[in-house]
């Protein structure tokens, strides 16, 4: 029982990071119809930048915020490459994000080397239902909850958020009322960068990051986004949590090396089950 609780909580923490990365993919896809495959690399940059900034004696809090903002800028730059030129077809933009992901991975190796990097996080642990849980993992869960609440408020209450929603809902009408849909797309890429960076900053203290981490992160995030139909950040959160828990249970009771395969399998199952719903949402 204690073991199960520990796996569940660490799964929720890992799933939270998938949800953050996945919601970035959703935000970009809703506005631009582009799947941003560079989202995993951006998360790694966030985690590694926080390690460097904290090592450079920036205080906790400030170092992490600076790393998240840096990831936002990186997301914006990727957006400029992907959709900066007017009329770029989504398929070309998707390939650009793949290229950008490779470029960022090369930059990660150049700047931080190939060894995993672990920034300092919250120390100590607490006992929940008999299981020892790292405080850092609880921080990941709480921060993800706050981030999703802020995201919901941004989209439902702020005028800029409504502009983003309008651009996603009806790009023609958005252009008609004077919204620059391309700028909204760039804003979405910047926002996705912030979400990805936040995921990296949060998970790096308990899950060391290297350029190798790109694939499992982006796969996990994409699987969560697919669960959300590439349209719903809330369902993406749910998908991320399911994926994280399934991955940790797989690692705990079967084999740790099957986690990525589990993400792929789940994504495949979700896509088959939800294919009709996805097509209906696309038509709508």
């Amino acid at each position, binding site marked *: 029982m204690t073991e199960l609780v520990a796996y569940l909580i660490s799964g929720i923490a890992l799933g939270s990071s998938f949800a953050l990365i996945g919601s970035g993919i959703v935000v970009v896809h809703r506005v631009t119809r582009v799947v941003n495959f560079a989202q995993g690399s951006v998360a790694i940059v966030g985690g590694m930048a926080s390690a460097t900034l904290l090592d450079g004696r920036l205080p906790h809090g400030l170092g992490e915020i600076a790393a998240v903002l840096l990831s936002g800028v990186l997301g914006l730059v990727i957006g400029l490459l992907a959709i900066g030129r007017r009329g770029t077809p989504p398929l070309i933009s998707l390939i650009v994000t793949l290229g950008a992901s490779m470029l960022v991975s090369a930059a990660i190796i150049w700047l931080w080397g190939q060894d995993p990097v672990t920034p300092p996080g919250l120390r100590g642990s607490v006992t929940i239902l008999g299981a020892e849980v790292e405080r850092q993992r609880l921080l990941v869960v709480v921060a993800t909850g706050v981030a999703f609440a802020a995201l919901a408020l941004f989209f439902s209450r702020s*005028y800029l958020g*409504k*502009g983003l929603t*309008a651009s996603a809902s009806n790009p023609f009408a958005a252009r*008609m*009322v*004077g*919204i620059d849909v391309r700028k909204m797309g760039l804003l979405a890429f910047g926002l996705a960068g912030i979400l990805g960076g936040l995921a990296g900053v949060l998970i790096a203290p308990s899950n060391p990051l290297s350029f190798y981490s790109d694939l499992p992160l982006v796969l996990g995030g994409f699987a969560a986004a697919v669960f959300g139909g590439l349209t719903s950040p809330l369902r993406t959160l749910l998908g991320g949590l399911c994926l994280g828990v399934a991955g940790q249970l797989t690692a705990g009771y079967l084999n740790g090396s099957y986690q990525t395969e589990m993400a792929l399998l789940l994504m495949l199952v979700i896509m088959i089950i939800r294919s009709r719903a996805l097509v209906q949402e696309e038509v709508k």
Partner: protein
Amino acid sequence: MLRIDDLVVRYGSAVAVDGVSFEVGAGEMVALVGPNGAGKSTLINAISGLVPPHSGTVACEGRIAQVPEGRQMFADMSVEDNLLLGGWSIRNRDLGEVYDLLPDLAGMRKRKAGRLSGGQQQMVAVGRALMARPDLLAIDELSLGLAPLVVAELAEHLRFLNRERGTAVLLVEQEVTLAFDVCPRALVLEAGRIIAAGPSVELAQSETVRKAYFGDLAVAEMMTGPTAQATTEVST
């Protein structure tokens, strides 16, 4: 206030608007009629800046807002959000003014726009355009898919708007009797070119225009009928 000069719009090698020139004065109501595929929507989209012209100029001394064909709601958003987004390009967004002009909108402000009837959506589309405080309202197919009584009500709102606020109206409409009834002046577009222009009453009586573009129904006779009759289907 709006001056179109030798406007040409192309989609690849196809010419949709071919050397169109006309003017709309401040506070004027002008109809732009013509059969399907005449280039009406392309022309209105070019005027609104949604379609780039190949050549020619569009000059407007004030602000233009468009009511698009098919309403084009932000379907999952509330009526109020739809209206607010209509004022995206201006600083002070005043919902009260639009609710004063279209009081029905206040009662449905919390409802999702996608769940409204066609007539209600058209009213939201008009209200959304008004949020930009336009000097010229460019309306694409006001009557499309709507019941005659709803169209008559919307037409009355347009007249009121024009009378009370002096907003100029460019009404693109396939329903010729409605267009001629609402707008004192009209232009007839065919294959991207203006082939007739003048007072609506005269155009309605023009044998050439009537036979060539509106079939054999007696448009002029319908013009003399009540407003409710203005939505009678006219063959194109």
